């Protein structure tokens, strides 16, 4: 692609405040950047770094108030966007600058067909109405890779898959061939294989139309795969900017260095000495299955959906087993059945020799304290009205024999310090913590009942990269100190490479491959495992292809 040197958008000294309860909070602080036609600029940063706010001002999507552009200019093709009135702004949005968002399901109106929603772009800019542009809309849908577009143009958003919804959003954005496309975390909610397809589509469209692409992401791999230039934001400020390869290989700012050390192709990660000697078998799962009956009506034939299909595996004492798969592959269903939150259709699971799937009453209760779970969403999995002390001590209320009441205070402090929090945190409520701190509280809560096995269901997926590494580090440290075993469920391959001893790869409810971690990464056997590994985006400066092809 050829990038011209005359910026189409230049942002200078942009400063944005948010007014909350009197005190203005500075969300964007003196940020400057520009983007040229045909170029891809990646804005890299963790949550709260101000990256979405700075591009939101370009589209006028920041509500003022509470938002307030304190200083700076946004020059697009000679006009300052911050000085436009509503109508002039409207004429640019969708026609010359377009945007796609992180969560396409929420960003599409559920009650209108996708065809109509795409047609609205033409209508809003006086290029025909919903009826007359139908053929154009079908062509657009075909271009972004929606199969059977002529029929599915009349479908509603909920009738598409996650990846297809993002394709619909892209079709909507490129409808009038905008000069700038802003993509705000466009692949964050998608599976890796779908992610690479969407990134490929964006690159292709950019080559065809020569538009400038501003991509916001927190994902280092995505950033490396797409960027010509990168700016790194932290705490509302630009801390680093430059050519993509330079930023990745020679980061200058301390924050960028820390961030890049988490990158799988960045600095070398110290290899963890793996426990070669396996302890005794702690958990043996045999032929576990979960079937759901679909569409069982008096007149429709029963259909069976096999969420988990004949899965067997063993977890040894002190071992970490990773379960990897895309959404819907059945990995969380396994976790829920092992914790007896769901009833399996068939199968057995022996925990320390006891069949846990048939336990009831008191026996079930005493098993529960030995296996604990850390959930994906640290915001939703804690009762907002309980303070940290009550959250951590709750297992002791249920299991009276763990700890006598007088020792609770000391033990809560001990546990908090064990997970890297402070004693004074005990009397705070969940909303007063960051995501990473909350996940630490969740781990402390899991440890409170002194379990042998902890099941982590996407436990770090909702966290920023640098926090992810901290939490993984904490889990590894606890494993070595307390002799814990883990089942670590994730869709994120690089993370398990750091952490797991053995990996199960799941697809459509079945285990398609099981092997030691290094072996799996170095010589994957099953085609699906290979395709998963191939989907990890590779840096743009390494060549033309977006993803690795073996």
């Amino acid at each position, binding site marked *: 692609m050829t990038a011209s040197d005359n910026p189409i958008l230049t942002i200078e000294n942009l400063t944005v405040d948010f007014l909350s309860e009197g005190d203005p909070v500075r969300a964007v602080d003196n940020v400057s950047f520009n983007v040229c036609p045909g170029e891809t600029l990646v804005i890299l940063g963790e949550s709260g770094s101000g990256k979405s706010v700075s591009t939101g001002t370009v589209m006028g*999507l920041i509500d003022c108030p509470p938002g307030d552009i304190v200083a700076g200019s946004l020059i697009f093709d000679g006009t300052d966007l911050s000085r436009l009135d509503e109508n002039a702004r409207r004429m640019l949005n969708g026609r010359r600058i377009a945007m796609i968002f992180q969560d396409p399901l929420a960003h599409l*109106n559920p009650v209108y067909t996708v065809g109509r929603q795409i047609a609205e*772009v033409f209508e809003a800019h006086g290029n025909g109405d919903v009826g007359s542009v139908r053929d154009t809309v079908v062509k657009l849908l075909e271009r972004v890779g929606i199969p059977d577009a002529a029929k599915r143009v009349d479908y509603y958003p909920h009738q598409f898959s996650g990846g297809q919804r993002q394709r619909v959003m892209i079709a909507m954005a490129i409808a009038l061939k905008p000069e700038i496309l802003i993509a705000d975390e466009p692949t964050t909610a998608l599976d890796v294989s779908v992610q690479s397809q969407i990134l490929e589509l964006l690159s292709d469209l950019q080559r065809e139309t020569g538009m400038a692409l501003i991509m916001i992401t927190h994902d280092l791999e995505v950033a490396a795969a797409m960027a010509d230039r990168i700016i790194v934001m932290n705490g509302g400020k630009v801390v680093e900017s430059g050519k993509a390869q330079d930023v990745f290989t020679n980061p200058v700012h301390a924050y960028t260095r820390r961030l890049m050390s988490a990158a799988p192709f960045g600095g070398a990660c110290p290899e963890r000495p793996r426990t070669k000697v396996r302890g005794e078998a702690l958990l043996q799962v045999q032929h576990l299955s979960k079937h759901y009956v679909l569409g069982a009506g008096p007149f429709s034939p029963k259909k069976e959906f096999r969420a988990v299909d004949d899965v067997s595996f063993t977890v040894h004492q002190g071992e970490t087993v990773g379960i990897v798969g895309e959404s819907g592959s059945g990995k969380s269903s396994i976790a829920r059945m092992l914790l007896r939150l769901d009833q399996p259709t068939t199968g057995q699971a022996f925990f320390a020799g006891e069949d846990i799937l048939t336990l009831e009453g008191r026996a079930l209760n005493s098993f529960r304290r030995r296996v604990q779970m850390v959930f994906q969403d640290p915001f939703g999995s804690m009762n907002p009205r309980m303070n940290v002390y009550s959250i951590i001590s709750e297992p002791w209320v249920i299991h009276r024999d763990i700890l006598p009441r007088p020792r609770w205070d000391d033990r809560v402090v001990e546990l908090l310090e064990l997970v890297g929090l402070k004693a004074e945190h005990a009397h705070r409520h969940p909303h007063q913590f960051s995501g990473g701190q909350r996940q630490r509280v969740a781990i402390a809560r899991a440890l409170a009942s002194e379990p042998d096995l902890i099941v982590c269901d996407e436990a770090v997926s909702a966290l920023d990269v640098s926090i992810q590494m901290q939490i993984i580090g904490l889990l590894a440290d606890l494993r070595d100190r307390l002799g814990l075993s883990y089942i670590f469920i994730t869709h994120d391959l690089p993370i398990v490479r750091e952490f797991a001893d053995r990996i199960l790869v799941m697809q459509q409810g079945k285990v398609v491959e099981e092997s030691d971690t290094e072996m799996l990464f170095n010589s994957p056997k099953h085609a699906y495992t290979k395709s998963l590994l191939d989907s990890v985006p590779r840096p743009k400066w390494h060549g033309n292809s977006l993803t690795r092809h073996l």
Partner: protein
Amino acid sequence: MLGYISRRAYHSIISLIGLLTLVFFLTRLTGDPSALYLPLDSSLEARAAFARLNGLDQPIHVQFLQYLQNLLSLDFGQSLRQNRSAIEVALEAFPATLKLAVVAMTLATALAILVGALAAARPRSLFDRIAGLVSLAGASMPDFWIAIVGILVFAVGFGLLPTSGTGTGLHWIMPIAVLMLRPFGLLVQVVRGTMISALASPYIKTAQAKGMKRRKIIFGHALRNSLLPVITVAGDLATGLINGAVVVETIFGWPGIGKLMIDSIIQRDFAVVQSTILVTAVAIFIVNIAIDVLYVTLDPRIRY
């Protein structure tokens, strides 16, 4: 959808039978009709003859079985007061109520959607504050009081409107205004609330990014999504009106089913009371089905 409607109809018939049973026994608790329909000094024989004629001399369970048997042949009993088929009396009064309810609900809903949407578009603006005040007052002021004050001011004071009765278009104004007040007030609050959350939805951002006009975003995207809860509440209020706007019909002398029901209860005209209940129950069933159908047409994700 048709299967769903027939299933709902089947369930409704069961609850209708329960309702009619309850009403049958409750009306008979009000006392002996012969005490009202015969002169005070009638002889015991005359009373016995009246009871025999109307089947009131039988034990109550026999009367009930007889009633059920008659229902099966669509015989709903005779009005004691008017000496003709009770269901005829009820069906004759129903259109007056229906007209009142339809006009009042349509006006109240349309107005509430407009006011609520505009208030939500500019929260905390002057318009929003006034709309909030008016709707709260409308929702909370008792209708009998408003009706009486209305008569006092517009009929007695200025002489602009008739005090009661039917006939001219002017007769409609006060009953409808009073009936509208509560649904309007409640609906404005519902529309405003659901619209504010709809306007904060991500798809509104998409619409802005497309460059759509604000008016189209508010009425095309946000309103359509906030209509479901509005319809639920509006449907509930509509059944309340169909059920006989008893107070308003009584105050304004409107010959509707609510007034008929009250009169029949007072006069111990059992068959008519039962028939009015039957008519309104069927009407409420139809309204509920209509709401379900509206749900499906408004939200493609809902399927029965």
